[in-house]
């Protein structure tokens, strides 16, 4: 079954604005990861946050994790047209060998 669910399903913003998307998961996790997928391409890993971390930064990306609410958020600051893509969260359960992906958020950045 699908572990992670993203919200919103789609997001359209102006270049320079921030984009925020959320992910909820169902069971206790070891870590949670975010991936980006450009149209027609494979997924690319963006950032990993462990269950004992609350916030992590990588360039213009900020990820938060709230294990009490079983949720995570990805913030992209000062968005660019090149950020147009689908973004997926993926969670790895405590005793699980696999990553479970959500259905993704499609982000469109308008120039």
């Amino acid at each position, binding site marked *: *079954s*699908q572990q*992670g669910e993203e919200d919103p399903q789609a997001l359209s913003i102006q270049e320079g604005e921030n984009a925020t998307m959320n992910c909820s998961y169902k069971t206790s996790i*070891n*870590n949670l*990861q975010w*991936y980006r997928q450009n149209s*027609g*391409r*494979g*997924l*690319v*890993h963006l950032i*990993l946050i*462990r269950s004992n971390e609350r916030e992590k930064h990588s360039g213009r990306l900020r990820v938060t994790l709230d294990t009490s609410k079983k949720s995570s958020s990805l913030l992209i600051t000062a968005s660019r047209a090149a950020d147009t893509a689908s973004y*997926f969260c*993926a969670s*790895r359960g405590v005793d699980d*060998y*696999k*990553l*479970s*992906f*959500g*259905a*993704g958020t499609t982000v469109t950045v308008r120039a």
Partner: protein
Amino acid sequence: DAGITQSPRHKVTETGTPVTLRCHQTENHRYMYWYRQDPGHGLRLIHYSYGVKDTDKGEVSDGYSVSRSKTEDFLLTLESATSSQTSVYFCAISEDQNTGELFFGEGSRLTVL
């Protein structure tokens, strides 16, 4: 970019025919995965491998089989393709099963008529 090659990248076949998709890696990673991606479903795990000749089922394994005779190759076989198996198939590799990130191939688009 991680050295992962999927073949074929596109295939159209007819219902009932066998299909084999190949994933080849040059990273010497132990773990390999096959996912399918369908609109509204994200990625769903079909099968994975944790070593040569060591494989296990994922959440949507019915109708699929896999083989891994050497570290670098992971084959996904549809014994008798059905229209419900029309999808984009992604291979992924990982060095560490428990904590590590996945590196994905570019995908294989399969259409079953």
